[in-house]
């Protein structure tokens, strides 16, 4: 079992990147790795409940599987939330809001890091 940090930094629907990164996150958790997710920049929008339907598949509904797949932690960059004028209460699920030093800690403790 490896400690894997997946850093998500893509907006949800502008390309397939966010969707496939989420699929990978779930697959790594399903194969018994300790998976931590860190959402930064436009990727914080992936965690917002949708207000309207989108033209592509809404992959964000699968985030309800995070708990079932034993994702160790869902972390969100504090600065990014501020940038997008959001609070963690607006997000789809309870998250850990992390400042830069906490993010550095995540980087240091992970054995593998993947960025999308």
């Amino acid at each position, binding site marked *: 079992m490896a400690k894997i940090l997946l850093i998500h930094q893509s907006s949800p629907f502008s390309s397939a990147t966010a969707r496939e990164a989420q699929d990978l996150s779930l697959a790594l958790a399903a194969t018994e*790795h300790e998976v931590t997710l860190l959402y930064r920049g436009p990727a914080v929008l992936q965690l917002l409940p949708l207000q309207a339907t989108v033209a592509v598949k809404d992959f964000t509904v699968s985030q309800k599987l995070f708990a079932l797949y034993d994702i160790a932690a869902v972390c969100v960059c504090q600065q990014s939330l501020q940038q997008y004028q959001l609070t963690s209460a607006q997000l789809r699920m309870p998250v850990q809001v992390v400042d830069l030093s906490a993010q550095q800690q995540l980087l240091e403790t992970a054995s593998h890091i993947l960025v999308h």
Partner: protein
Amino acid sequence: MASFVLYIQSDCYASPVLDDVLRFASAALQLGHQINHLFFYQQAVQAICADIDLPADEPDLAGRLIAFAESNQIPLLYCATAAEKRGFTKVRPGFTLAGLAEFGMRLENTDCVVQF
């Protein structure tokens, strides 16, 4: 001595990413490290396409990578779902179909994952 997995996800169309991968992999082997496998995901699955018809003055980077992997017995794996969704169904000899779960399981005995 470390064991590596190379995870390739960026767009490899007309970009030097496959050459970056090749140079990194050759250097790692030269230094006595081990490359467990290469895994192609997201836009990088384009590398598997059998139907790409390159003009004579363009280097066939995927071809070079296939030759390198063959002579060093390094598996070239790709995510079948990512490829099929993009319509990449004719696969160039040298690539092996895999899934995200297999990628996860194969990380078990890996020291370092390097993302391209």
